[in-house]
């Protein structure tokens, strides 16, 4: 006997069960449009929580300590500024360096005194400095350049492979949908944006496009085969392709998300791995939204983009005419997909 999930997959394949991704595209695209507006508004209102590498911060260095216990440093900063993010490292074997949020002159002095007391050194042995927002300016600019080139090449490549630039357009719009959504999640939750997060964003971009290409390839296959037949309209072919690849989409999303979720949850709650956590969060959100958007945004958008083409409207009219003539119309399916 097939398991419920298998039966679900079987029914999706034959079209016995069909989820109206394309038919109800106004609903799905509407939801995404609202989501996008919200995700753009949140950062405008709340702003992003930029990490120390972007906004700069304070840095302390303690030389020749007798102990390299890192909790002393963390406590010293937390007592002065309770919500400060502290990164501690040991330098030269007997020195402590800690990096934290940008502190005021008064706070800097307080932390210096606490560090001196905690490590048993004179306050003169502690240097404090301020980090300029270097990473953000230098490396992000290059990453953006790369992004631009990648998008242009991906657009051309997909247009050539799929023989239609409308698939490229739908895929790239979906990609921006995913990036904006993830950025919105970051703004909403107030998680820090660090260089690691940027890497996570870049991965999302790769994943989003990858996922779309896999599903679009099935769409290409179905629409090509149905082009000369009168069984399905263009929109129905697209919808069937999405349904037929739905099991694959779910399985892939789960398998891609599991290791990331492992790092995210176990790392965050049990061991505390800050940088990996930054990457994992953006990846986790990105994988889920990437899978969602392929199904609910890319495919409906693509069928919408091609809706008006003369060849496709003509084919649709012929299909509907043939269906009207035939006695055994599948009423449920026909009305649902229109």
């Amino acid at each position, binding site marked *: 006997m097939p398991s419920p999930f298998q039966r679900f997959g079987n029914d999706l394949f034959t*079209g016995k069960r069909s989820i109206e991704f394309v038919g109800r595209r106004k609903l799905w695209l509407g939801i995404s449009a609202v989501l996008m507006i919200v995700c753009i508004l949140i950062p405008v209102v709340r702003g992003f929580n930029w990490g120390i590498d972007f906004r700069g911060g304070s840095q302390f260095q303690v030389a020749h300590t007798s102990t390299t216990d890192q909790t002393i440093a963390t406590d010293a900063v937390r007592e002065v500024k309770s919500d400060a993010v502290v990164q501690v490292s040991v330098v030269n074997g007997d020195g402590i360096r800690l990096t934290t949020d940008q502190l005021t002159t008064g706070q800097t002095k307080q932390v210096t005194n606490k560090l001196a007391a905690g490590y048993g050194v004179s306050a003169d042995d502690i240097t404090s400095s301020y980090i300029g927002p270097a990473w953000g300016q230098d490396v992000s600019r290059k990453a953006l350049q790369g992004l631009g080139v990648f998008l242009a090449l991906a657009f051309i490549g997909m247009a050539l492979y799929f023989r239609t630039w409308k698939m490229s357009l739908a895929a790239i719009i979906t990609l921006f949908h995913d990036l904006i959504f993830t950025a919105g999640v970051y703004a909403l939750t107030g998680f820090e944006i660090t260089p690691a997060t940027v890497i996570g964003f870049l991965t999302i971009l790769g994943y989003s496009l990858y996922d779309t290409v896999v599903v679009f390839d099935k769409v290409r296959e179905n629409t090509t085969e149905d082009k000369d037949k009168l069984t399905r309209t263009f929109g129905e072919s697209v919808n069937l392709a999405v349904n037929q690849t739905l099991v694959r989409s779910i399985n892939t999303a789960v398998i891609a998300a599991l290791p990331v979720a492992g790092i995210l949850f176990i790392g965050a709650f049990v061991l505390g791995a800050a940088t990996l956590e930054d990457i994992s969060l953006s990846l986790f959100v990105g994988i889920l939204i990437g899978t969602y958007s392929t199904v609910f945004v890319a495919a409906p958008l693509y069928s919408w983009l091609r809706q008006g083409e003369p060849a496709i409207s003509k084919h649709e009219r012929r299909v509907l005419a043939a269906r009207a003539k035939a006695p055994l119309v599948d009423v449920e399916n026909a009305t649902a997909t229109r």
Partner: protein
Amino acid sequence: MAKTSPVRHASRSLIWLGVLVVALAAALTSGIIWGGATVAPKLGLDLQGGTEVILTPALEHGKQVTSDELDQAVSIIRQRVDASGVSEATVSTQGNSNIVVDVPGRLDDATKQRIEASSKMELRPVLLAQSPATTSFTGSDGKSTPYPTPAPTLANTPTAKPTDASDLSWVTPYLQAKYEAFDCSSLKNATTNVAPAHEPLVTCDDAGQTKYLLGPVEVEGSDITNATAGMITSSQGVNTGQWGVNLTFNAHGAKAFDKVSQRLNGYYAAAQSAGTNDPRSQFAFVLDGRVLEAPQMQGVITGNTSQITGNFTQESAQTLANQLKFGALPVSFKVQSSNTISATLGSTQLLSGMIAGAIGLLLVFIYTLFQYRTLGFVTIFSLVIAAALSYLTIALLSWQIGYRLSLAGVAGLIVAIGFTADSFIVYFERIRDELREGRGLESAVEAGWRRARRTIYAAKTTNLLAAVVLYIFAVGDVQGFAFTLGLTTVLDVIIVVLFTHPIMQLFARTEFFASGHKLSGLDPSALGAVYRGAGRFRPAPTVGAAKLASSSREAARRQTIAERKAAELAAAGDRRNGKDD
């Protein structure tokens, strides 16, 4: 029975994969035994620790670097670090004045020197020169007496306003005394030879052989756009066999240098006709307050290029050219600190990341077994082989080209689990689709592969494109990430072609899978297939003639009679049945 084509094909693929794994493993093993490779791949600064050099500008008191100068300095130092082939070194600014160079792993001495030889280049005219440099004179008593330290009361403002940088009225009594007393061995003190650009400078050459009193700066080192070492050709175009350094100036530098050369060449010509030697015909390339070279101006230089000739060897010409080119920082920098960092990450985060990743991987295994039953093992083995190949490649690259695995790279590897598994999922789902359409397993595997292959190649190309573009454009961390992403994409394709598909071809022939055992993950009845064993079938609703025709010839050839009948019937019933799907 002779081996059939798919089996032959499958065995050949698996043998190739075996050869690949064995070759990589052998290369790594021999590297470990004889070539200094390590079992664990080298790790980046964020995972393993590394060296951090903080440079701070050496300025006259009360001056500040501008952000333009700092940016220029950062890009020059980055060029130098990149030129030494250090991977993932980052050069960034700290605060408004410092430059931080992060180099993963141990910093070799040559690279360190190249970074630290961060310098300010100035071109100053020579006012006085003395060789060999002495700090004492023979007094009237016939004994050697050191020159006294110049008294601060001595006049230090020129009596007449100097007309140009070579005007000897720059030499005040105080400077004269300072010059006479200057000890070349004090050159290593960074503070002794710093002078504002518009004032004279007392210094020595690098070897401490000659000491100089130099006029104000006339051309800045940042005006030098290029410097190369090369053979000097005479005016007739004949190679003289001598080494020299060719300099190229920007427009501003060319104009200034043109003026200087006219004036200095005047001194040279005058001294030549008088049969004497005038130090003022020399101009000095001053790097960090030390005179690199002080050639005579033997001709008037117009245009933006000039040549320095002298007793150069190829090596010394190259060194000077590099110093002139890379030393052309707008501001001079000193090393403020040079730390070896053991990152917080290195000690705790790598471990926690690995534990979390392992748990995640275990969940993936459980999920695939649940979803694909026995077929899940194919996924698991494929992932295990992917992991082995990734490890071997990274270890080899780490040994051969000094690749370092950074945290960003680890993230790339973790994401790769999903991307890699997706190839198998796409493939399995396509096989299942073909089974649902009523094919036998063997032909379903072939037909599914034909279709899945296209999708996989298209999708992987997208990934590879992303990786390559990011690698070319990005720097530092992002590059490390792009590298692993690209690497695992290539490995993924290799595995799905050389392992997953061949294994499926072989499995398709086993009784367990071919009969569609409940636990095989390919149970046709569970998949709601049309074809249900010997002779029992119902018309397939979706298999169209076009679809069957587009499937592989191989699959068509391998159809059983029953399948063919089913297909024919399906094709015939297509018009009628097409309505309800």
